[in-house]
């Protein structure tokens, strides 16, 4: 059965346990994103003098890096943590009758909370620097939702196979490292060789990151056509992952 109470309880515990026993407690959940934003915007943008072609503002590169890195961090953490979620929560799985795929939702929710805190601080920074907001930014939650769905779908596939092949978590970690550097998050796509540039359209992470960069940095429309295709692809991945899981569910429960 789908136990929403359990999912919410796991999300809360996952979030609070990270700072349990510390003096500042949950305040750390705000301090860390603040530190990251200072590094991205002040160090990368201002002190190191990073700038985008054709952009004169000192904050533009910092914003470019932030709107790429923050969603990517949520995506990669969700995917990476999803791989071992069945093994880590085996004490719950063996005692309670719960839907295993829903365990991935708690990982995603926990990462979404971190994303929301970081983006809230980021929006405060944007207001303080006189950033011009536009209606296109209303799409941000939908793009992030699609990105997290992709992480959950891919994560469910990996979580199912990791029960049988434990090395998969490490392999996914390595893939994520390469994936990060093959996605123009801290650099602009213009510096890439033509062949790699042409291949970027096949990188789903780039479509997501590009959408955020278009909306925040260039104040332009995201690639709607690619987002529509990605919507179908992501839900296809989810259905496929769920079918694979359903086929192997009995073995998964036996193995853990």
């Amino acid at each position, binding site marked *: 059965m*789908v136990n929403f109470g359990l999912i919410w309880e796991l999300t809360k515990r996952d979030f609070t346990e990270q700072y349990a026993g510390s003096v500042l407690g949950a305040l750390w959940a705000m301090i860390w994103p603040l530190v990251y934003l200072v590094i991205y915007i002040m160090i990368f943008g201002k002190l190191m003098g990073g700038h985008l072609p054709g952009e004169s503002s000192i904050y533009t590169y910092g914003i470019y890096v932030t709107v790429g890195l923050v969603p990517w961090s949520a995506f990669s953490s969700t995917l990476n943590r999803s791989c071992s979620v069945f093994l880590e929560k085996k004490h719950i799985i063996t005692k309670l009758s719960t839907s295993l795929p829903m365990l991935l939702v708690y990982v995603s929710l926990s990462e979404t909370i971190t994303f929301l805190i970081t983006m809230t601080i980021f929006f405060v920074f944007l207001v303080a620097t006189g950033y011009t907001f*536009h*209606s*296109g930014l209303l799409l941000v939650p939908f793009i992030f939702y699609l990105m997290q769905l992709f992480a959950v779908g891919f994560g469910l596939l990996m979580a199912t196979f990791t029960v049988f092949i434990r090395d998969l978590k490490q392999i996914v970690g390595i893939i994520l490292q390469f994936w990060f550097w093959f996605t123009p998050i801290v650099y602009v796509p213009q510096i890439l060789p033509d062949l790699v540039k042409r291949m970027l359209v096949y990188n789903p992470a780039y479509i997501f990151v590009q959408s955020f960069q278009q909306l925040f940095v260039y104040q332009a429309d995201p690639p*709607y056509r690619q987002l529509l295709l990605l919507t*179908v692809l992501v*839900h296809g991945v989810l*259905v496929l992952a*769920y079918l694979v899981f*359903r086929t192997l569910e009995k073995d998964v429960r036996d193995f853990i």
Partner: protein
Amino acid sequence: MLALILSAWVAACAGLGYGLLKQCRYPLNVYGLLLCSTLMLLGVFWMFPLLRAFLGC
């Protein structure tokens, strides 16, 4: 016309979502929720540029 299409889409999505959440039967609800999610996102990414152009914002 656009407002009419948008209203119909919102009503369809809301009805579908409510119906699927109401029954919430495993595993039917998983496919149902995914279908609802697909329709919602397709609707948003398809209608949003039209709506922005229509409203001029």
